[in-house]
């Protein structure tokens, strides 16, 4: 559609400029600013930037708390990604068997996913502190009465349990869509050839699910790498900072200790990890398209 120079400028301004301004102000500028401050010592208040080169980054590499939080975030991400995907896939396989009430079951299983992580954390705080101990008393099984949020190991698994509860429903939805995309006649002819359920799943359904696996696995990875709300309300990162995710750690460095420069350097290292994951994801997607 041909436009005169004047209309082109006018249209471009009206349609695209608001987006460009908003995006630059709230994403690009802060990002560049964050990158620049990571090379300075700055408390966020004064106008004096003291340039200190890469020493923030060197300090980050030796920062025990940061490394601990880094390791915790990776461990938690790995555990939740594996468990949530296995459970979500099992749910999807069962619910696509045309059993009665599967619509209702599906809705219940997604329910935790539509709520705020803060709220989920508080719900489970009650369950871990009151509900499970009461259940332990009732049944006489001591296991339920352990101090769920009181030790690093139990707190780790408490957060895994809640995250899986939160995320497996969403993952299930994507797997269900994938399974339903397998043409009926392929399934029928597989059965006609005498395939068992297991063979059908392994040789027919799984190959069709490849794109769903990529979507779900990377969705859970990025959700967990960026996790803030749930541990913030459930454990406040404790006990002894054992469940302090990178997101919480950076938040505290900047907004509780007011180390803006140092906090920015940590944020940049965090960003680097996120980039790495995205690169792997994009490469896998390219490969999938090439196949």
């Amino acid at each position: 559609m041909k436009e005169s120079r004047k209309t082109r400028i006018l249209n471009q301004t009206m349609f695209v400029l608001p987006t460009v301004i908003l995006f630059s102000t709230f994403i690009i500028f802060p990002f560049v600013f964050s990158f620049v401050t990571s090379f300075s010592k700055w408390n966020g208040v004064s106008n004096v930037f003291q340039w200190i080169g890469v020493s923030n980054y060197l300090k980050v590499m030796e920062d025990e708390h940061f490394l601990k939080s880094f390791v915790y975030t990776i461990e938690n991400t790995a555990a939740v990604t594996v468990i949530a995907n296995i459970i979500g896939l099992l749910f999807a396989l069962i619910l696509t068997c045309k059993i009665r009430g599967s619509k209702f079951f599906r809705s219940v299983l997604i329910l935790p996913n539509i709520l705020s992580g803060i709220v989920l954390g508080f719900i489970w705080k009650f369950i871990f502190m009151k509900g499970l101990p009461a259940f332990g008393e009732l049944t006489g099984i001591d296991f339920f009465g352990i101090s769920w949020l009181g030790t690093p190991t139990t707190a780790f698994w408490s957060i895994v349990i809640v995250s899986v509860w939160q995320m497996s429903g969403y993952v299930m939805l994507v797997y269900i869509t994938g399974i339903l995309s397998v043409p009926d006649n392929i399934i029928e002819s597989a059965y006609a050839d005498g395939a068992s359920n297991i063979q059908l799943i392994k040789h027919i359904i799984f190959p069709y699910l490849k794109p769903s696996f990529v979507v779900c696995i990377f969705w859970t990875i990025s959700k967990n790498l960026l996790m803030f709300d749930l541990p913030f309300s459930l454990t406040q990162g404790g006990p002894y900072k054992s469940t302090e995710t990178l997101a919480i750690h950076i938040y505290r460095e900047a907004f509780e200790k007011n180390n803006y420069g140092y906090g920015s350097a940590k944020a940049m290292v965090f960003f680097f990890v996120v980039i790495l994951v995205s690169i792997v994801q994009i490469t896998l997607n390219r490969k999938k398209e090439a196949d």
Partner: protein
Amino acid sequence: MKTKYKTLLSVLIGFCVVLFLIPFYLVLINSFKDNAELLTNILSWPKRFILDNYQRAFSQLNYTKVFINSLIVTIGSNAGVTVFSAMAAYRLERYPTRMNKVIKLVLLSGLIIPFQVIMIPLMKVLKSIHLINSLFGVILTYWGMGIAFTVFLFRGFISSIPKEVEEAAFIDGSSLMYMFWKIVFPLLKPVIFTAVTINTFWFWNDFLLPQLILSKKELQTIPIAINAFFGQYVMKWDLALPALVMAIIPAVVVFICFQKYIVEGMVSGAVKG
């Protein structure tokens, strides 16, 4: 799949569904108990339903106010993100000049920047334009943060609309703006629904951004208010549980009413996004 094990599978999934619901159930029944009963009797049905808990939590939480704040933020953010993204996506898709290609690329790369990476300077930006402690500040920031994803959702859809419809309108001599609102925008309805579904749950549930921007009590949204409430009434479960139920209800009601659409929106957002 074959149906031999159908009963077994039904029982299994039924059991899982019950497990999934138990936390909600326990919070709900205990929200009606008084303190004494909460100490001794967690698992059983309330001896009598105490509504006084709800009354106190409702006023302590300032529920009406925080509910309205959440509503304002969600509606305002959705309106802006939808309008700006639709316009930009349309222009970028239909007029692929070199400049527009660059803009598209920059938007795309912005998708992977996590909030924690930009939050520190973002607060400085908001402070300098006096938007700290303002609901509009939150809304404006969501516009900036939500646009990239929504533009990409819209772009794919727009490319599937045949150009002939628009060209016919141009022959009638209408301006691009008029044609966009009259013809293209209504066609976007399905993808707008997807975007609004996904973004609504984000705006409604988000914690960190409003927590950083809104420190005044009268401006709090539901997640902020609940967090402050739990900080203030540590372990006072007779107040905390009713507050929690009130925080859960709006999202659950919306989910039950629009279930079908929400599920569709969540799936298509995941697959395209």
